[in-house]
């Protein structure tokens, strides 16, 4: 089992660093180019939401990413922050109607969470008073 951790300030400027970290972890887990891209995309969306919501206008506070590739080759990514809880399961899935396209349906977070759910096999969230917000996403090894 391979485990990698990254802790860094929760700022939009750090999204590129996060993407590099996740890309390397997914490649090391043996994922192909498309799967690697989808994983980094889901994590980018998740971290954007955390940065936007957890720490407010200050945007100061750390995010920790933990990537684990297990023996089956599945990749488990946990995103931990210590700010205001943002539960993706509480955000309604946007209904996108091309005929009557409404920008409000793409409210901050909504479309990003839609992507996360589509691209990853599992998305779970829990809040712990001691350790903060934990968003976990799993991508199973593509068959």
């Amino acid at each position: 089992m391979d485990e990698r951790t990254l802790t860094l300030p929760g700022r939009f400027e750090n999204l590129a660093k996060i993407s590099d970290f996740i890309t390397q972890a997914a490649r090391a887990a043996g994922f192909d180019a498309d799967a690697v891209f989808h994983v980094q995309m889901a994590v980018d969306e998740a971290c954007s939401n955390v940065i936007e919501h957890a720490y407010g206008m200050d945007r100061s506070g750390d995010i920790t990413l933990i990537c684990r590739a297990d023996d089956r080759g599945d990749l488990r990514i946990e995103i931990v922050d210590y700010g205001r809880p943002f539960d993706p399961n509480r955000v309604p899935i946007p209904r996108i109607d091309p005929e009557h396209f409404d920008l409000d349906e793409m409210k901050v977070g909504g479309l990003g969470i839609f992507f996360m759910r589509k691209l990853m096999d599992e998305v779970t969230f829990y809040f712990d008073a001691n350790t903060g917000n934990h968003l976990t996403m799993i991508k199973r090894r593509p068959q």
Partner: protein
Amino acid sequence: MYISSRELKRVNVVSVSGRVDSAAAPDLEKSLQSLIESRRNQIVVELADVDYMSSAGLRALVSALKAAKKGGGDLVIARPSSRVREVIDLAGLTSVFTMHDDTLEAVGSF
């Protein structure tokens, strides 16, 4: 993300490259909105060299498209990279954006 813009007689061509994530999307939005506010609302957005576009980038494009149309103009996409096409499809927005394989063709469509 890099943005470069050139003004033709009736159309502005905005070329975007790199990553359009939540850090970059506000700049993209600003560039497009300032064109539209100065009544340059016939816009071709070239996306051949965009490696990644997040939901924030898509929102910036949609918001600019709506503003352009409101002003009697339009915003079309030229040479979208395969990753850009993929994210537009995933969002269900393929029929919302007009996409051209060629910039000249996109400019000529106005």
